[in-house]
């Protein structure tokens, strides 16, 4: 079973934009350790001499031509936005925008 510290959980939560209280952190610690432990089974597979796989299906070189296809109107583009001024997506102030 992998060792997952509370700080590890805090870091992963932050990267995922999630906020947990202390109880939840402990709960997540157990979940995360279990998940990672499960995936770690893969480490038992002998991969010496196996080429890295970039994609599970054996297909390469899928392209499209540089031609226009229909676009969304502004109304359509903004219709799911939680907040809009009719022209832009409106979001809470971005804090790390420099200062």
């Amino acid at each position, binding site marked *: 079973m992998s060792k997952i510290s509370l700080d590890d959980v805090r*870091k992963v939560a*932050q*990267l995922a*934009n999630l906020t947990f209280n202390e109880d939840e952190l402990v709960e997540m610690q157990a979940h995360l350790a279990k998940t990672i432990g499960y995936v770690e089974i893969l480490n038992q597979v002998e991969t010496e001499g196996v080429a890295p796989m*970039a*994609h*599970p*299906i054996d*297909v*390469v*070189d*899928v*392209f*499209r*031509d*540089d*031609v*226009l*296809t*229909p*676009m*969304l*109107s*502004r109304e359509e*583009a*903004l219709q799911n936005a939680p*907040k809009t*001024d009719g*022209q*832009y*997506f*409106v*979001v*809470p*102030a*971005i804090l*790390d*925008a*420099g*200062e």
Partner: protein
Amino acid sequence: MTAYKLVIGLEVHSQLLTQTKLFSGCINRFNPDAPNTQTDPVTIGLPGTLPVMNRKAFHLAVRTAMALNCEIARHTKWDRKQYFYPDLPKGYQISQYDLPFSNNGYLEVESDLTDDLKRVRINRVHLEEDAGKNMHDESGRGGDSLVDLNRAGTPLLEIVSEPDMNSAFEARRYLEELRLLLTYLGVSDCNMQEGSLRCDANVNLHIPQEDGSVIATPIVEVKNMNSIRGVEAAIQYEATRQYKHWQKTGETLGDVDKQTRGWDADKSVTFAQRGKEEASDYRYFPDPDLVPVTVSDEFLAQIRADLLEFPQARKKRFQSEFGLSEYDAGVIVDQGVEFAEYFEQVAKTSGDGKQAANWVTQDVQRELNDRGCTLSEFPIDAETLGTLLQRIVAGDLANKGARDVFAALLENEGERSSPADVDRLIDEKGLKLVTDTGALEGIVDAIIDKNEKVVADVQGGKQQAVGPLIGQVMKELKGADPKTVRQMLIDRILARGN
């Protein structure tokens, strides 16, 4: 001996000139005035949408990397770079991590530190999608930010240099050379104001110590420079600032985290930007929605065949083929591919490269500046100008006459002039040089006969008295060269006195 060595690496982002975005058929066009009108389900990251690679974008990317002397990978893939930012609708950017399509290139640039060209190594060039654009509340009251996704998903090349530049001048020349190359290749329009060419600079100092060791100052990444001059000024500022900061604090590389500073063009200073809370942890992994791309010999041969002549090669060819000075060749080529091709056509039609260079860099350039127009809007096409200059080369037209014709051709507003206009104008204005001295002698003698007083004055030593007679001769024989006429008048008047 300077107190320190400046070390600069540049990271340049250049937007590609495709019709559509990198992963969908949504239009790729700079259009900040109509926000959120250039999107589609892929652009705004609706669930269930799938990206498909734009073939043209990949071609342009490979073309650029080849021009930058890079090795092109035979197998390349795209990865997801995860971070949260409102201009990134999917929550990740499709970029390239460990298998970029090209690496290990170089660009040669002029240097103020050595006489030779400086070879700046290029670490990698990769192809990624651009983000949208955020607008922040400038009032400082922390109001909402606005997001425009017109730019989201447009194709972007990231060109990362090694830290091989050692002066702000070298950095400027690197960017100028890169911009020239990208515009020559038709890959990007490189408009820094519009953000189609963007540059971040990594800057630090190497300070030699008395014991022979070298101290490196912490690396600072400078952002927000929206002109090449701005990059040069920011680097200069940063060098001085870092040296003073080191003298004060003694901080060296590794003592503090990498710092990000912005460039304030109005105040000409860099200022500390708040770093990201978390050291970058983007958790890259291969994007399962895209399949890898392979590059064959045939594909590379095809791209190579499509490559235009590079600026440096063209400068050298203009010198050898048309006898231009290094300076003139540089002036012409640096104006861009359209200008260079205009010159070449004029030079070929006229048969005189130097004459062509003079006219193109002086008369044509001045008119373009005055009119604020481009060559495609200029009323005199290259073949017409070439024909005009050919008449000078053939001895049919004096330079002054050619300027008259040039001015008349410029009047042709609305319709483009043609080579036939050149001869018509020369005839209409009677500018054709008379080389038949027999005819000229007859007229000169006749005029002398009618002007006894002038003859006496000239013979008495007042050569300037001949002036009015020149006009009379020219009236009789349009196109005579005034200098020849003057000399002939004086010679023949003085001969009579003997």
